[in-house]
């Protein structure tokens, strides 16, 4: 059955390719550190299950140490000149948009078709499997159509990966921190402290404590999913629903959306806020968050008013 193990092998090979290309890049200012950085990520994908918890933990510490020492750095991946690109755009015109549709198209088709193919694909991993299939198909089509040097797929991927840099690791590491927080009981403690912030009997104060708690705890954790059980268990259910008779459907659904307003403001939500700033080569790491403040705050007020006005 094709599922996560196959995807991990594919991802491991991609990272291993970047490690090898970095090692061969004589102009790379941090050649060995960069190669070790990509190589360790490749090792995690290819052999993570065999390393054991302690082995993986040491691997994480080594990756973070390398990042602090300047890995992965930027080398000189072979790519086309801006004149080549302008000429290619002039010659190929709007047909260049077609490959950009391959990955979304495969994602769309895969969502509907893969679960029907019996036991061939893991039904729980349809999204990621579609992504892997789409990436392979699109890469093959582009190689056949534009005929770049054989190493281009590796070098072009490395060019973008070096632009993103160590921030690539941040989403996975933050998800891991969430698990360690869970192990340490952080959520339970916050959930037991949260009700203490509410003055007795005030409906509005209770609603604000709930939506505000959702937003703030989401900013701290980077993920509304982590905040929801804590705030719902601490305030939403005992105070709003059971204490003040609020409708649990409105409290749950809109409370989650109040948390999403926090996600827009959180540097811990790296996938949405930090990685795109790196991908777009913006000098300010928090530029995307700054662009979102003016949307997140009015929407948080709207969600708070929605619960206050319609849940009772």
């Amino acid at each position, binding site marked *: 059955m094709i599922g996560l193990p196959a995807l991990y092998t594919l991802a491991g090979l991609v990272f291993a390719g970047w490690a090898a290309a970095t090692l061969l890049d004589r102009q790379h200012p941090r050649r060995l550190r960069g190669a070790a950085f990509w190589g360790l990520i490749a090792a995690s994908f290819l052999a993570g299950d065999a390393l054991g918890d302690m082995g993986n933990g040491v691997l994480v510490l080594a990756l973070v140490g390398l990042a602090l020492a300047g890995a992965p750095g930027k080398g000189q991946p072979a790519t086309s000149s801006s004149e080549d690109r302008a000429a290619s755009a002039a010659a190929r015109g709007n047909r260049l948009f077609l490959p950009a549709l391959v990955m979304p198209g495969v994602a769309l088709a895969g969502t509907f078709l893969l679960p029907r193919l019996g036991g061939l694909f893991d039904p729980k991993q349809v999204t990621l499997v579609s992504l892997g299939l789409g990436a392979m198909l699109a890469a093959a089509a582009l190689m056949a159509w534009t005929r770049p040097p054989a190493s281009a797929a590796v070098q072009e991927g490395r060019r973008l990966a070096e632009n993103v840099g160590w921030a690539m690791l941040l989403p996975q590491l933050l998800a891991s921190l969430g698990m360690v927080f869970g192990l340490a009981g952080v959520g339970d403690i916050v959930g037991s402290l949260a009700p203490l912030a509410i003055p007795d009997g005030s409906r509005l104060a209770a609603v604000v404590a709930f939506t505000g708690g959702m937003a703030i705890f989401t900013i701290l954790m980077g993920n509304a999913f982590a905040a929801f059980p804590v705030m719902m268990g601490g305030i939403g259910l005992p105070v709003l629903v059971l204490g003040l008779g609020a409708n649990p459907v409105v409290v749950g659904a809109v409370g989650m959306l109040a948390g999403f307003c926090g996600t827009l403001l959180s540097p811990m939500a790296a996938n949405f806020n930090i990685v795109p700033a790196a991908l777009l080569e913006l000098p300010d790491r928090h530029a995307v968050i700054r662009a979102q403040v003016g949307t997140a705050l009015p*929407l948080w007020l709207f969600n708070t008013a929605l619960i206050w006005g319609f849940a009772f």
Partner: protein
Amino acid sequence: MTTLPSLWPLAGIAIVVIGFGLRANPLAVVVLAAFGSGLGAGLSVVEVVAALGKAFNQNRYVSVPWLALPVIGLMERAGLQEQARRVIASARAATAARILILYLGLRQITAALGLTQIAGHAQTVRPLLAPMVEAAAERDNPAITEDERHKVKAMAAATDNVGIFFGEDIFIAIASILLIKGFLEGAGIIVQPLQLSVWAIPTAIAAFAVHGLRLWRMGRVSGKAG
């Protein structure tokens, strides 16, 4: 009144707040926070390292989408960004604000239908959306500063986020809806996913109105009516 629990496991949260406040390297902040909370909860150093390693290995799926980078790079090598700019340069009606408002609406609608994966920062924002709005902003304001150019690109990424966050919860089978349903079920309250997703619609409309208005005003400020 129940007695207060030990607060030491919250050390990790304090480290996160201070670390991001000081703009320290986030990877280092995360590792220190794991040690802060782990040691605060009574784990040993070795146990924290093992817990971090176990969690890192279980969360590898989070980093799988990076395997799409070679495809994006190959498209850029063939001139995709240049073509996106050429198209916009000749379509004067396509202002930066209008492109982003259209994208916001499409992203919300497709996310509401469960199609969250057909767009994203690597798939669409970097190769298509950002070069398009950048080209439109340059065309309409030839004196654009580097700072304004960065702001427009940041707004492209922000628009993708707002679109997916406040569209996806209308789809009944999305993870957040299932999490809410599961939590309420654990408390003995049975709700249907559709009841929950209907309550995502008012905020979706408000998100389009608030963010759309900000985009429209951005277009007015940058010199030309959006």
